[in-house]
């Protein structure tokens, strides 16, 4: 097990490095650079040249990447080209808010998804099952920003129950912050729940035809217990994988929600940085996203092994 984790970690590290390289090259491929984007239309060639020199943009790519990596290995994320402030300082609060939102959403949606998945699996082919399925599809078939707008219209403008500005400020208390985050959490939950729910349902059903399930029935175990005690543990692996994927999405892919609910997270930060070609910042975000994604995958794989005794034991069945 330990060896397995070690190998995966090593691989993850390799992937991570290649991600940063990819991001670096990619953002440099984009036309324009920090100088042109900051100075904008008024820029004259000489001001541009001077600015590039100031920002060290005239160094060759390899050198710049090397320097970035070197600093990183010394725990330094570097300075933002546009604000000339250390990235670590600005990115930290962003990271915290992103994780906060993702975490709370997961807290809501994962149990919900799995619960509903179990429910519809238990009632396979019944009206309830159909309703759940259709509801889930409908939920994911609305563009995220539109779902968000609808929520704002109803709960913020019309009913005035929740604010539509979800930014969390240090001066806000716990409940106030929570209250402020309700709408984005709901919007995101709509997005991710359906997928996880479907997977829960399918993977439970896939084990339901196993002999040991029948055995459980024949031992007089009631339906609910059969599904939760016997089916679920054996169906866990794919569910975990999908959950991990959605969590990764919650960390990486929620720019639109951030913008609409004015929730300053990493997504928005990265978009701005890309627009301004603030490559060190883009790099930092890319790095974090990479870590999140790879880390979550690793964790899910490990969990999948842990829930399955057969994989847990050293000698794999052949």
């Amino acid at each position: 097990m330990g060896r397995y984790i070690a190998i995966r970690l090593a691989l993850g590290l390799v992937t991570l490095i290649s991600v940063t390289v990819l991001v670096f090259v990619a953002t440099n491929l984009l036309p324009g650079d920090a100088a042109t984007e900051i100075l904008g239309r008024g820029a004259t060639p000489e001001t541009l040249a001077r600015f590039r020199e100031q920002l060290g943009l005239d160094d060759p790519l390899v050198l710049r990447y090397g320097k970035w990596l070197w600093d990183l290995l010394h725990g330094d994320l570097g300075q933002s080209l546009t604000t000339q402030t250390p990235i670590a300082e600005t990115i930290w609060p962003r990271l915290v808010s992103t994780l906060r939102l993702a975490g709370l959403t997961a807290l809501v949606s994962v149990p919900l998804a799995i619960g509903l998945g179990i429910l519809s699996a238990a009632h396979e082919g019944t009206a309830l099952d159909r309703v759940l399925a259709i509801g889930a599809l409908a939920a994911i078939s609305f563009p995220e920003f539109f779902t968000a707008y609808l929520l704002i219209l109803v709960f913020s403008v019309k009913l005035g129950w929740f604010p539509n500005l979800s930014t969390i400020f240090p001066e806000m208390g716990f409940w106030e912050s929570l209250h402020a985050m309700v709408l984005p959490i709901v919007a995101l939950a709509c997005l991710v729940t359906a997928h996880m729910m479907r997977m829960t349902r399918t993977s439970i059903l896939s084990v339901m035809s196993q002999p040991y399930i029948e055995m459980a029935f024949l031992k007089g175990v009631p339906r609910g217990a059969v599904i939760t005690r016997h089916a679920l543990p054996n169906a866990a692996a794919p569910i975990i994988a999908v959950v991990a994927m959605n969590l990764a999405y919650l960390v990486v892919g929620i720019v639109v929600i951030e913008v609409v609910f004015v929730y300053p997270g990493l997504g928005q930060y990265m978009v701005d940085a890309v627009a301004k070609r603030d490559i060190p910042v883009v790099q930092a975000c890319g790095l974090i996203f990479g870590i999140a994604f790879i880390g979550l995958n690793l964790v899910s794989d490990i969990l999948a092994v842990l829930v399955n005794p057969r994989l847990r034991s050293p000698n794999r069945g052949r």
Partner: protein
Amino acid sequence: MAQDPILEIRNLRIEAQEHVLVDDVSLTLRRGEVLGLIGESGAGKSTIALAAMGYARAGCRITGGEIRIDATDLRRIGVTGRQGYRGVRIAYVAQSAAASFNPAMRLVDQICESPLRHRQMTKAEAQARAVALLGRLGLPDPQALARKYPHEVSGGQLQRAMAAMAVIGRPDILVFDEPTTALDVTTQLEVLALIKKIIAEEHSAALYISHDLAVVSQLADRIMVLRGGKMVELGTCAQILTAPRECYTAALVAERDHSQPMMRPLPADPGPPVLRVQKVEAAYGRTRVLQGVTLDLHRGETFAVVGESGSGKSTLAKVLTGLLPPVAGRVALDGRPLPEGYRSRSAEELRRIQLIHQLPDMSLNPRQSIGKIVGRPAALRLGLKGAGLRSRVEELLALVGLPAAFADRQPPQLSGGQKQRVAIARALAAEPDILICDEPTSALDQLIADDILRLLVRLQDELGLSYLFITHDLGIVRRIAHRTLVLLQGQTVAVGPTAEVFAEPMHPYTRNLLVSVPQMKPGWLEAVMAEKTVHK
């Protein structure tokens, strides 16, 4: 002590979407009595057994009749009512223990689940009884075993654990659904003995389902013969064995008697071996599974490799086909060394050695037409196309005794025997010299299995094929194998002409194998067990 039946089934009728699975079957069971249900797959044995617990598999419906335990009809008391009976009054022992234990739960938890759920005993009591039972069932170190997960335990042990799981709630009725079919002969013997012991000790009634008359005859007081969901014959064990009324029963009885071998004798001088295997060793990772196996296979010869699960006989097949390169030893085809991995073998070499798997369901692509499955090798190797290919396919199907029309069907539409025939036809399509048969009949009903064997023998005569025949069934070996090799944990314990291998003086292991083959005479089981204890 004959009293009212504890289990009584009247005019049972069970239907699936299209067809009727069980039609108007009635039976009664008294305390202490064992009723054997026998018949081929599809006869409805298991369906009836499950119905006895008020359970119908998904897609099946119990549409008629009564299922009474004592006075209550399980059909009328609803799901929760039935749950109250299961595990308490009537318990089930499934065919494949390996599949019927939840891989994610410790054995003890599964064994104790039913009594705990039905509040029969406290957790402590239940676990104590579970361990005690495991001990009584002759399992070593029951304490430790109980804490294990299914995959950490051998098949035979699991089957006993399953028996423990059934009796833990002290049920009145036990339902055994082919409990020994998946086991090696030697293990089967022990488990059978144990089952008999349990039934006696627990003084409960039992339904014993099997396709193997010999096995049933060791346990059952009465035997019911089923076919196509209908009852063929019901009688006492002795009567069924000695004086079957129905000819179908007669066939079943007759088929078990293998005095005369099927195969043609070999010519005095068989000439040079087609396939020569020398000191082959193979391993999965670090674990050795084959150690220095040596054998020669001549043209037109059937060479049997016998052994129990884990003896490495299937591994040998993998090595010869090149799926698993050996760690040591040489394999030569017509004296020319055969490359180890199949990737490095020439098309010609690949063509000449063909493999027939144990499970046709796994070895036939369910989404290809029979025509394509059989035709592909011909098309690939001999470049046949269109009408030529078609006629070749029909030829091959005819060769294995299948109608030409099958070419357009898909495997799921075929029966087990038909599938195996298709697999053989596919192997023949490559026009091979050597067929490696990995337990090709073990998944089939006796009658079907015999047909397949006859087919193989016939093909050998017509095409002069050589068979490397891997099996655990000594009955088969003695009927078709010219020479035999007995494997025990990857090592050769005996090799030579079949007759010699099975003639005294025998290697104890060989003898053990031999005596363990169930025989269709009442009291055989006790006799063997007695003899065994003597030998120990």
